[in-house]
C-alpha cells in the first residue's frame, strides 16, 4: 500500500528542517515594525533566469523552512506585505510589476532578490531590459548574489518578521 510506504518514509526521514540559526538581529526595514511576526510574501518574476526562483523555492522548502519564522508565500499581491522581485525588469514585465506593486496595500516592502534585480547584472543595457527593479518601483532592501543562497533569503525575511 502506498500509504504505508509513505508513512514509513515519514518515520525514517524525521525532521528535515535544519536547526534554527540565530536571529540576524533587528529589523532590516523600519516599515516592518507593523508586521510583528507575520509576513505574507508575493514573488514577482520580472524577467529572471529562474536561478533565484529555485533558491526562493528552497527557502520555503523543508530544509530552510522559511515558514517557521512567520513568512508565507501567498497567491495574490493584495494579501502580501512584501514583494520579492527577481530578475532584470524586462520591457514586457515593467507594467505588470508596477501594477503588482500598486495592488499591495501600504505599508509595502519591496525586496530586490539577486544581482539582476539589484543592478540588472549581466543583462544591463540589453535591448529587452528596462533596467534594475529600482528603476521601476522603489526598493527597500537589496539582496545581492547570483543567485542569493536560501539562507540569505531566509535571513532577510527574518529581518521582517523579527522572529
Amino acid at each position, binding site marked *: 500500500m502506498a*500509504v504505508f510506504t*509513505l*508513512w514509513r518514509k*515519514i518515520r525514517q*526521514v*524525521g*525532521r*528535515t*528542517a535544519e536547526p*534554527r540559526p540565530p536571529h540576524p538581529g533587528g529589523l532590516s526595514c523600519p516599515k516592518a515594525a*507593523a*508586521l*510583528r*511576526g*507575520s509576513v*505574507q510574501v508575493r514573488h514577482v518574476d520580472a524577467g529572471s533566469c529562474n536561478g533565484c526562483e529555485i533558491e526562493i523555492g528552497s527557502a520555503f522548502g*523543508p530544509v530552510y*523552512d522559511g*515558514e*517557521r*519564522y*512567520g513568512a*508565507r*508565500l*501567498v*497567491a*495574490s499581491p*493584495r*494579501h502580501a*506585505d512584501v514583494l520579492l522581485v527577481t530578475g532584470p525588469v524586462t520591457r514586457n514585465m515593467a507594467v505588470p510589476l508596477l501594477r503588482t506593486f500598486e*495592488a499591495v*496595500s*501600504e505599508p509595502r516592502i519591496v525586496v530586490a532578490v539577486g544581482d539582476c534585480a539589484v543592478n540588472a547584472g549581466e543583462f544591463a543595457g540589453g535591448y529587452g531590459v528596462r533596467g534594475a527593479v529600482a528603476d521601476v518601483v522603489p526598493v527597500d532592501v537589496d539582496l545581492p548574489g547570483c543567485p542569493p543562497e536560501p539562507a540569505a533569503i531566509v535571513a532577510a525575511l527574518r529581518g521582517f518578521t523579527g522572529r
Partner: protein
Amino acid sequence: MNGPALAAIAAQLVVTVAGAPLLVGLMRQVRARLEGRAGAGVGQPWRDLRKLLRRPPVTPRGTGWAFRLAPLLLVGSALVLAAIAPLVTVASPLDALADLFAVVGLLALGTVTLALAALDTGTAFGGMGASREITVLALVEPTILVAGFALSARVGSTNLAAIVTATLHDPLRVASPASLLAAAALLIVVIAETGRLPVDNPDTHLELTMIHEAMILEYAGSDLALVELAAAMRLTIMLGLLASLFVPWGIAGASLVALPLAVVIFVAKVAALGAGLGAVEVFVAKLRLFRVPELLAGSFVLALLAVASSFFLA
C-alpha cells in the same frame, strides 16, 4: 433568558472565535511536522489576523456593495451558527433556531455571499472560483440535508439539539448502520464545504486549481482578516457539529457546572478531528476538478443509503 443559558452561548462564541484560528494553526503544524518541517507554530494564524486587521482594506476599481458586504455577512452568519449550533451545550435558549434547515441555510448564505463578491470583482479568477464553489455547494447541500434526515427520522425532529439529546440517551444509536453511513457522508461533505484536500487545497498558489482561494484573491487588510476568520470558524463549527452528532458525550446540559468540562471536551474533540484531517491531507493529492462531483455523488449515495437504512433497519 437566564444566566446559565447566556453563559453557555457566550462560551460557544468565545471558544469558536478564539479557537478557530488555532485549529487552522494546529492543522498546518501537523502537516509541517509530517513533511519534515518545523512549522510556524499553532499561533501563527492569530499573528496573521492581528497584522491583517490593522492593515487598511482595499476596494478594487469597479467593485460595489456585494464585495464590501461579503466579509461582514460571512462573519455574521458564522457567528450566528456558532451561537445556535449545539457545540458545547444542548440547553441553549437559541436551540429552537438550530434546525437542520436553518444551519444548512446559514452555511449556504455565507458561501453564496462570497461567490457574489467574487463575481463582483470582475476578474477571471473570481468568476472561475465562484462558479466552482457554487458547483460544489449544489452537490454538498442535498447530501447534508439527506444525511441529516437519516439522523432526524428516528428522533422525529430536525432540531439538531434534539438529535444530539436523543443520541445521548441512547448511545447505541451511534453504531447503527444509518448513523455510520451518515457520518461517512457528512465527513466527505465537511471536507468539501470547508475547502480542504482532496477537494480544494487551502495552501495553493496555482490559480487554475483554486476554489475558495480564487474567490478571495482581491481582498486585502481587515476585509481579508474577516474572510479568513470566517472560513476558520466555519471549519470549527462543522467539525464541532460532526463531533456533537456522532460523539456527543461530554456536551453540557442546562447546568452551569458542566460547562467548563464541556468546553474542554469540545476543544479536545475538534482538535483531534482537525489533527486527523491535517494528517490525512499529507497522504492525499488534490482531486481533478472533474472528479470532485464523483466523490460528492458518492457521499450523496452514502447519505441516501443512510436514510433508507434508518427506515428499514431501525
